[in-house]
């Protein structure tokens, strides 16, 4: 009897240990694949300038049109469509094979972008690049829901927030890895070699990462909850109809979108991308300095995805996510204002300056001759300003001496480093609060048989559409009369505020069973 009990106890302990090992394998396999998908999606965005140059020359109206289509359609249309397409597949066939398929599509598309001959040698290239970018958007739409569902369905009750938060780190880590790879390639090659062929390397690298991830994922088993449903013959035959045609479930889809993912999407986009654009374009901070400091902030802040995921298991998801949104609404304007003031040259005393003037005779037949005045200014705090003003020679000759283009780039002294890193850290900390618990929140909102479909759509509308609209609407507000450099923030602040009100009134902190 005693020996029997001992064996049972040992067997239970072994099983517990195996389950624990298994969950880490599941998290590892899912996270690596999702990280690679984010990496693939980001490098296209990070290399947008050189891609435009190689495939979508702005002088050609057709290719310029295709470039716009690639930018907007991939995020706004194809991502939600991918969520529906792969969500349905994942609820019918299974999670494992569906998110294997999204990985193959994403990796294959990225690799082919890296292989594509440029527009100069192959005039059909812009069309193929557009198709490949749309495939990337489609794959991304299907990947996240699959990975989050797969991990959540392996996780024990009460630890879903903690385990799924590892998936939540992948979006930030994907951005981080893409920046590291691009900066490494740029620094390893000469400028000419990088422009000629080096820019292809980040795309080509993807295929190795994807193969490794596919091998790892192939070895994993199907989600236990989905396998159980399948063996009982209880899987959905029409997940789209059951998700969006069933009133009770549709109500939850709408609540997930307007009470959670909509606000999460704008906070996520503002913290991770708008801040970068704001520093480079509005503040004029030098791009490599900006990206390096953002990278440092990301290293420090990424663990907080897991912290808030873990905390959401203890105190509930709703409170953490809504606090993140509220803090974003309250703090965005002061934080962005302080970043702007740190970079503002008006607050500095000039120590020395040199001015160089060059003439460009008919640089482009469409314009007249240009005069470029470059000023290098060093301030007393060791910050440096590079001011490039371009004048029309003809207008200068008739005393119309306002520049037709002004570009300022400031390189801050190193003593400002931790101020900017600190502000970026706070902005992304809000992201970790809203994003860390959201996978577990969405998974628990829907039943297993239509979970993949039901959670993917609000997630991708929240992030792809509401989040993706941040730069567009911000530009729209900024060019309106009476606006200032902070006006673009009204859009994310407004959406987050509405989402906060809906969330606090209509969402319950009660967790679903997850079955």
């Amino acid at each position, binding site marked *: 009897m005693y020996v029997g009990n001992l064996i049972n106890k040992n067997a239970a302990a072994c099983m517990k240990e195996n389950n624990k090992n298994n969950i880490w394998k599941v998290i590892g396999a899912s996270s690596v694949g999702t990280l690679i998908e984010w990496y693939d999606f980001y490098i296209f965005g990070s290399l947008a300038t050189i891609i435009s140059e190689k495939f979508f020359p702005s002088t050609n109206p057709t290719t310029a049109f295709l470039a716009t289509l690639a*930018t907007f359609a991939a995020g706004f249309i194809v991502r939600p469509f991918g969520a529906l397409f792969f969500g349905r597949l994942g609820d019918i066939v299974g999670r494992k094979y569906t998110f294997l398929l999204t990985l193959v599509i994403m990796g294959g598309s990225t690799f082919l972008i890296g292989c594509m001959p440029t527009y100069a040698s192959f005039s059909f290239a812009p069309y193929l690049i557009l198709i490949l970018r749309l495939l990337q958007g489609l794959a991304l739409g299907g990947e996240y829901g699959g990975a989050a569902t797969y991990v959540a369905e392996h996780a024990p009750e009460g630890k879903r927030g903690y385990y799924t938060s590892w998936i939540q780190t992948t979006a930030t880590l994907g951005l981080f890895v893409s920046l590291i790879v691009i900066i490494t390639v740029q620094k390893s090659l000469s400028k000419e070699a990088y422009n000629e062929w080096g820019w292809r390397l980040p795309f080509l690298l993807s295929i190795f990462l994807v193969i490794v991830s596919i091998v790892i994922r192939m070895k994993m088993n199907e989600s236990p909850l989905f396998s159980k449903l399948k063996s009982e013959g209880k899987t959905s035959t029409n997940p789209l109809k059951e998700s969006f045609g069933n009133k009770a479930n549709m109500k*939850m889809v709408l609540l997930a979108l*307007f009470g959670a993912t909509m606000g999460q999407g704008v906070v996520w986009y503002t913290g991770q991308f708008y801040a970068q654009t704001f520093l480079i374009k509005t503040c004029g901070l030098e791009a490599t300095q900006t990206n390096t400091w953002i990278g440092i902030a990301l290293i420090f802040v990424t663990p907080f995805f897991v912290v808030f995921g873990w905390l959401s298991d203890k105190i509930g998801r709703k409170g953490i996510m809504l606090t993140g949104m509220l803090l974003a609404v309250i703090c965005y304007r002061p934080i962005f204002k302080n970043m702007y003031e740190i970079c503002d040259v008006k607050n500095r005393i000039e120590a020395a300056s040199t001015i160089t003037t060059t003439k460009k005779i008919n640089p482009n037949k469409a314009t007249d001759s240009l005069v470029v005045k470059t000023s290098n200014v060093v301030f007393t705090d060791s910050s440096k300003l590079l001011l490039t003003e371009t004048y029309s020679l003809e207008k200068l000759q008739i005393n119309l001496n306002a520049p037709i283009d002004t570009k300022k780039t400031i390189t801050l002294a190193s003593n400002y480093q931790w101020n900017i890193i600190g502000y970026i850290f706070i902005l992304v900390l809000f992201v970790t609060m809203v994003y860390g618990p959201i996978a577990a929140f969405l998974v628990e909102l829907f039943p297993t048989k239509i979970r993949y479909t039901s959670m993917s759509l609000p997630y991708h509308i929240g992030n792809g559409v509401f989040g993706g609209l941040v730069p567009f609407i911000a530009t729209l507000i900024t060019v309106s009369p009476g606006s200032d450099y902070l006006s673009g923030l009204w859009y994310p602040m407004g959406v987050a505020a509405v989402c906060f*009100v809906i969330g606090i*009134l*209509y969402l319950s902190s*009660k967790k679903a069973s997850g079955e």
Partner: protein
Amino acid sequence: MNTIKKYLGIVWIFVAVAAIFFLVQSAIHNIKPNGTLDINKPMPWVIIIIIFIPIAVGLALFGWYAFKGEYDKSES
């Protein structure tokens, strides 16, 4: 609390209609043949308005459900 949730339903319906009106009006004002910004090109507006119409319908539906008291009980 249920009364607030219910009457805010009307606000959500109004916000849905206002969002579409704002987008269409902004598109009309900002599309310019010689503009260089994305907001001056017709294609982004066409995509955004097409994708936003069903989202606005969803918000109006959410508002309608809220007004009908469908979210009165905690269901999440």
